[in-house]
């Protein structure tokens, strides 16, 4: 399990007006939130939503009943914001992703993200954290509160499905 007692100290310090403490919480969890958001929404939307998630967390920190539960609470905010994004009516269906066109394999990268986003929820978030954010399985377990065994299974099965999907799209 993660070092959630350290989170609790940082939450208490933030409540006492310590900005640096919230900055530390941000650094601890920015990759996790980024990865979870990218598992659900277009890349071009992630940065705005990321800032939004932490702003909401900062604003509502007083309402967090158990400071040791900060990570799970932050995950819930991130998923709610991702859900809000999909509920929001959009005049233009999708904004174009701003991944630099300097990458010759840009299309391939987008296709891989799309394939991850099409996986069952349990797999897409775990794989996004592993492959995009570069977190290891033990780190994912520590940050999300899932058991290492669950994360390992999600990675194994998710990767298997991802290989199948990428293999199929390469053929077509």
């Amino acid at each position, binding site marked *: 399990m993660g070092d959630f007692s350290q989170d609790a100290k940082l939450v208490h310090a933030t409540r006492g007006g310590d900005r640096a403490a919230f900055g530390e919480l941000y650094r601890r969890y920015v990759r996790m939130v980024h990865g979870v958001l990218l598992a659900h929404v277009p890349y071009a939307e992630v940065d705005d939503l990321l*800032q939004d998630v932490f702003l909401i967390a900062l604003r509502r920190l007083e*309402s967090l*009943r158990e400071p040791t539960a900060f990570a799970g609470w932050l995950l*819930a905010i991130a998923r709610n914001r991702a859900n809000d994004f999909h509920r929001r009516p959009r005049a233009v269906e999708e904004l174009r992703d701003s991944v630099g066109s300097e990458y010759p394999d840009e299309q391939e990268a987008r296709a891989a993200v799309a394939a991850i986003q099409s996986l069952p929820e*349990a797999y897409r978030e775990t794989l996004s954290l592993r*492959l995009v954010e570069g977190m290891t399985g033990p780190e994912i377990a520590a940050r999300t509160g899932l058991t290492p065994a*669950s994360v390992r299974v999600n990675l194994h*099965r998710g990767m298997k499905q991802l290989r199948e999907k990428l293999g199929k799209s390469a053929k077509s």
Partner: protein
Amino acid sequence: MSDEYLWDGSGAPDAEVERLEKLLGRFRPTGVPEFEFPAAATSPLAKRSRREQWWRIAAAAVLLLGSIWLMRAVTGRAEWTIGGLEGSPRIEGRAAERNEIWKVGQSLETDATSRVQLRVDGLGEIEVGPNARLELLQASATQQQIRLLRGTIRAAVTAPPYVFLVRTPGAYAMDMGCAYTLQVTDAGVSILRVTVGWVDLQHGFRQSLVPAGAAAESRPGIGPGAPYFDDASERFREALETVNFDVENPQSQEDALTIVLTEARPRDAYTLLNLFRRVDAEDRGRLYDRLAVLLPPPAGATRQNAVDGDDMSAWWDKLGIGHVKKGLKGPPRIEE
């Protein structure tokens, strides 16, 4: 393929994983990220005229009061009242009394000879059995949340879907207009039995919708397992437990899935449908083969679609157990 490399980057690199890491690493935030704190002094509101500010505050207040009134009209008051009791239940360690209000942040405990009946206008009734411990986390018009740490509650809920939420060590149980029993053991395992309507169980990345007549277990750190009907065979239920929770032993899960498939009756097709999201492509093929024997496949359904992990919702119509309420598409919102 090296699972160790996928797990923690150790062992012989898996070429495909390594390729994807390089390909997708570009989406990662660069540098040492810093949080942009909101600058209150330069917020748009601070620049507006004082009159405009007052108008906005007044309008917001009217809107807020209207919303509260509307929500209360729909869901009633948000107070938890001790409607009845047996034995000597305790609130925050002192004896609870009939008609007492159980407040947010307070604990409620029963011993081996105690029971409590809780009433919330507009929500319904919750009966707390012996040897239980609960906490009231939230009591607003839009969401009522309790935490069940151990023991059994029986809920009969009349509120709109997703207003009542019970947190257990293994999952959130979200009411969708229903009656159910929820038990948490000393080991933190929760067992849900639905008698009327539907309950939505969620934890982390897992979700199970449990209909009337069915049950589902949840475990800490893993979440809810696939639901099963109470009248399924004992062998089916035991094997399903392994498939659901023995996540460290893929081989025993595989063997258990064989038993689940052999024992499944047409009514157990619901359980099989819930397993599609939890198994790999090969096992999805096995699930499809059995499902197609138990139920006539819906128009357009193919084995390949099932193996590919495509949407299986067309099969639900074949089950004859109804649907969750309309208008509840997509994951529900849990208030933070």
